């Protein structure tokens, strides 16, 4: 497309690497027509957390936590205190007052945990002499405690008192934590998922006991999410997606996503021969809205229906590089960001014509059974199932020059993306913004009593 600039020689390959996905510049469904670059970080920005309707916090490798006003793009607070990169961040809402007050908990590689007040920028609490750095945080609002996971699993009260602690034996430590019914929590540790139960004794002290160890994954568990009250899902590095019963921890569905090469004569066929590399099948991220599960598998996207336990839509090459974060905007719209620096918006569409060649992927699908998952001939369900639909690219947001690590949507107020290029970008609906500005203008005009 830029051959005329390049003189038709160099960088041509990179441009044409994914011709299928080049949506071009005509994007009528893309309503992000205004952007604002938020500068403030000095290193990779990895985490974004929504504080309330108009604020979000960003944190990254520079140890800084910045609080932003999404409406104006203004930097509200700068939370300094961590000396090394932030490894986890979450919000902590306390309901003890008249109004719920939201605080921020951050964990850093400097083996400290901090509680911040985003209104004032104060560091309310801090614990600095941890044995290891914390990799994930989970707030159990019901119990008014929070859990930190790393090499050990610790439970903390809201005023930062250690309630109980469990040493782990795996090398990797806890990589993901979710809350399960009946005061249980699930912790992903390497290839297993361990279920712990928290019990509150009569003297209101907490204790934690390991109940079950689910070791059905063949590879490292990369993602762990709650789907609804009765279900949770996990995804592994090898592309296994398992649906679990949240109460009795049984496998409800097992999906091994194997990207098989397509039959369509596309340029990739020559490039990809043989078994896919594990990283291409790795489930990086899972997200759900209760009905659908969206899995980021390598550089592709995979939509799975919880009800029918079938695949709804998928796209093997959704991005040029690994997908890092995904989100389901609605039942048919989703969004993904990737290491290639772009955010893409997708729509699940029915196949326009049945006569069109069916979608070319192959994947195995087993229900309640996994013994023969590698050997058995893959059933061609997608071809048979009439309601498999396609994932159509409706728009992309190009702005970052590095990998887009994460994004947070503020609904109609916009979208915040963070990236390795140290920037945050606020994407907004230009029309809405201009309407808001007009409102402000006439308001000011009225206040000033004319021009």
């Amino acid at each position, binding site marked *: *497309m*830029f051959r*005329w*600039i*390049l003189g038709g020689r*160099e*960088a041509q390959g*990179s*441009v044409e690497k994914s011709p299928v996905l080049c949506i*071009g*510049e*005509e*994007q*009528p469904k*893309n309503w992000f*027509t*205004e*952007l*604002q*670059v938020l*500068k403030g970080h000095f290193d990779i920005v990895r985490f974004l957390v929504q504080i309330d309707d108009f604020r979000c916090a960003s944190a990254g490798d520079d140890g800084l936590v910045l609080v932003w006003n999404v409406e*104006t*793009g*203004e930097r509200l607070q700068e939370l300094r205190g961590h000396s090394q990169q932030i490894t986890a961040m979450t919000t902590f809402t306390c309901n003890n007052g008249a109004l719920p007050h939201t605080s921020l908990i951050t964990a850093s590689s400097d083996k400290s945990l901090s509680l911040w007040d985003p209104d004032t920028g104060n560091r309310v609490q801090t614990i600095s002499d941890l044995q290891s750095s914390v990799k994930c945080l989970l707030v159990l609002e019901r119990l008014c405690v929070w859990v930190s996971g790393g090499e050990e699993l610790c439970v903390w009260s809201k005023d930062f008192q250690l309630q109980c602690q469990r040493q782990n034996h795996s090398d990797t430590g806890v990589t993901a934590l979710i809350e399960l019914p009946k005061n249980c929590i699930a912790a992903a540790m390497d290839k297993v998922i361990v279920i712990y139960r928290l019990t509150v004794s009569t003297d209101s002290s907490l204790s934690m006991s390991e109940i079950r160890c689910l070791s059905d994954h063949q590879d490292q568990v990369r993602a762990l999410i709650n789907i609804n009250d009765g279900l949770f899902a996990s995804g592994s590095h090898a592309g296994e997606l398992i649906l679990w019963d949240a109460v009795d921890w049984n496998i409800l569905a097992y999906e091994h996503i194997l990207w098989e090469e397509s039959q369509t004569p596309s340029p990739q066929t020559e490039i990809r021969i043989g078994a896919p590399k594990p990283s291409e099948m790795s489930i990086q991220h899972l997200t759900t809205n209760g009905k659908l599960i969206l899995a980021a598998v390598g550089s592709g996207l995979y939509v799975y229906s919880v009800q029918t336990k079938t695949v709804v839509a998928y796209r093997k090459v959704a991005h040029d590089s690994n997908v890092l974060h995904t989100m389901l905007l609605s039942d048919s719209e989703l969004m993904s960001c990737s290491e290639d*620096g772009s955010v893409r918006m997708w729509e699940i569409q029915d196949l326009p014509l049945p006569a069109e060649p069916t979608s070319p992927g192959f994947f195995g699908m087993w229900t309640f059974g996994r013994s023969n998952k590698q050997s058995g001939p893959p059933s061609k369900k997608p071809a048979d199932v009439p309601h498999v639909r396609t994932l159509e690219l409706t*728009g992309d947001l*190009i*702005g*970052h*020059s590095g990998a887009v690590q994460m994004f947070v949507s503020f609904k109609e107020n916009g979208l915040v993306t963070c990236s390795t*290029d140290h*920037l945050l*970008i606020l994407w*907004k609906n*230009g029309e809405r*913004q*201009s*309407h808001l*500005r*007009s*409102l*402000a*203008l*006439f308001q*000011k*005009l009225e206040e000033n009593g004319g*021009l």
Partner: protein
Amino acid sequence: MIGSPDLVAFTKEDEYGHTNPDPWAVPEEFSVPLHPLVDLNPWAKTSYAKFTKDFILISEFSEQVGPQPLLTIPDDPKVCGSFDLNYFSLRIMSVDYQASFVGHPPGSGYPRLSFVEDSRVVLGDSKEGAFAYVHHLTLYDLEARGFVRPFCMAYVSADERKIMLQFEELSFRFSQASECLKAGNRRAFAKELQRKLRDLEYTHSVLQKEEGLQREARPQTMYSAHAVEKANELANVEKSIYEHRDLLRQISSYHQRPRRDPNAVTCQTCLNECLSECEQLLDKFAKIASPFTHSEDSGEDGRSQPDGEEEVDGEEEEGVRRRPSYTPQLIKAKSAKCFDKRLKTLQELCDDVFYEATVELLKDTERSFRGDLCYLHTRRLDRALRRKQQVTNFLFEEDLGEDEESEFGALRPVCAVNHVRANCTILNPPPVVLQLDPPEPDSDTIQTQQSECHLDSADSDHTVETQETTERYRRGQSGAGPVDRKQDQGGTTSETPDHDLTPDPVLTPDLERESSSEDLETTAGEDEGDSVGDQTPVSLLEVESELMTRREDESEGRPDGTFDMDSDLLIPIDTTCCLSQEGFLYDDSTPLVPPFMDQSSDPQSCETLVVKQEPQALLPLQDQYSVSSPGSGSPAAGLDLPVLAFGDSDSRTSVEEGSDCTLSASTGSERAPSPLGYGGMVTLHQRKKAGQGSLRFVRQYPFAVQALWCLMSGRTLVVLGTDEGRVRRLVSALALFVPGPGKCAEKVQSWLSVPFTLTDLQRWKLIGLQRMASPVGSSMLYSLSRYSRYISILDADQKTLRCPPYCGQLLANMATHRTYIRRGSTYFLHLQSTLCRLAAKAFLFTFTHHLHLPVSSTEAPEVVEGRRHCFLQEQLGLGEDDSLILLYLSQLITQQYLQPTTGGSAASTCFSLKYTTSVLYKI
């Protein structure tokens, strides 16, 4: 009365067949003459004058050699060419009917200083082709005949109408200069008097000593002829002392005269300084003679109390700091007022400071009147209009603030001697009344005389005598002992500084009132016969209260934007002339209004501009008007001539930047492309130069209209090229089209050689990018392709443009490559007007309520949307693409209005984009 046949009455407009022009009609200057004059060049109608451009001439009527020119501004012999300054000085001095009253009025014992108001005359010399606004003023010189030296300042122009129509402003500016000169002169005069008094005092003491010796030598009451002669001499000296003391008193009472001059602007600081100085002197020398002569007098006068102390104090002061080096000289009985004596120069007559300030003022005046009437008028209109649309000015107009100061700064009551402007007041609310009224020219003068006579009668000899007696009386009572006097000293010295330290009467009126009312109380009993003006403290009060009331008057008159008309001074003919005046310069009063509103806003504007380079001759430029050189490489555009005023500010900024100051605005020479985006202010001059470049661009590239559309709809345009010069030229040419480029063209980056990022796109709307064949180059190209949806790319090397397709009509008349415009500055003006119209549309669009918000609560947003669409499409006649321009401009206006301070900064600006495909345009 007026001897000159060529003297042009200012009010003769309609007698020449003109009616009052309709303010809405096209000014006559713009209409094309049906039958051109002999000269085909419409601008050259003044070319028969012997001088090339307007200048200011200062002449004096020397009592020794008659009228003589003193200096011209600009001080360059080339300016007046073969024009006979001597002859013209004679002409202008001969119409001086200001100094009609000089010397001793009958019946008064002492020589009187004549307080003469300045007079203003317009005269013409058709033979010489010269017309002049002549401003006569009188300065005081102790050695001159009648103590006055008549001077005049004249604005000489070849264009009569220019003077007539600018009369008001000329009058204002020259009055300012005149006031400045006179203020300095009064100080100098007081100093001179002081010196003279010291001499006299010394002479007196010497004579007295001699007399005493004689008396001792011959105690018997026999007077020799010699003794008689000595006694006469002594008496003469005493008389002279009285005379000079009286002069001193007169000069210090100068300020309380009612001023009829509408433009009399006085700096309160200067006034107070001068006043207190005079006061000190007056105090000091009030009773020089008394100790020697009479010490047994009776009669107490509390009022003179301070004076006595002041004497001792003053003398000490004198010895210590005032004039340590000055030794009094004996004065011969007859001072030589002869022709062999060298008269003081103008500079000596005024304080150096004041003289310099005046010259600066006049230089400024000369500068602001450069260019022909048409240009002045257009500029004025332009400014008036622009001041009215401050909301949209940031879009395409250059910053007005700077120019505004240089243009109208002088019209504010600014003290030329760099005092804070807040101290300056217009003594009289300037009524639109001219001092000159040819039909009955006497009336004013008579009035003057009357008022002066009134003054004279007030301070008659009697006054002084009473003063004397009271002094003596006081002295007697206080015991005439120096010790006693010193005891009181503390009180009085503390009082005197009060006057010095309180320059602004508004700030400390109570203090002043206290001190002076004290004086009033002590003197209340006995000074019925005295004129109020005799008492300096009282006079101070007077002046200030007068000032206060004046101020009140002004503030009353201000809200409606007009000034009080002094109805008693308003003569019917004047009103007609005022009307005609207003018809043409209807915004003339506006420059007079702002000073009150932003008096304190910017004290820096007190600084007057300095002419850094020689002004250019007019003639070569006139040639350019007649001979058109189409598409010539040199942007020495014809209309460059009027840019002078801006050119100076241009050069000033260039001096600030440390670059060469040889840049002359009017040379129009080839110069490197203007340094846009270098952080300096983008001046009008640079923009005009860029006009040439943009004209070339428009004529050269058929896709210019698309490029302009990109810029004006907010899409960043990247000019890609290997040759830095070419890219920079293109950028500076295109920068004209960047809406709201910022004061220093912050939105333009003329040369970038590193890959740009999204942040840069947010900051810059026009980027010159270096094409490189290195790894850096490839990463740059990568960023180009990556952000291709946000940018348009103009390839300067291959002459291609990649941008979304545009098929609107709005920019067609701006960017047609078949344009008939051949000159850059013409094109620039064309652009300006088009862009201005566009900005006006955007303003209308932005601030029309129902286009953005629902009229009623039930209205759906789609309805508003539809209305907006309809407005753009049908009322403004804009297509889809053209609407984008307006929407972008409107967005900028909104942003600017909502946050005027951060509007230009990149911190919180948003960046709108549109997802459309681009196409490639080729030549």
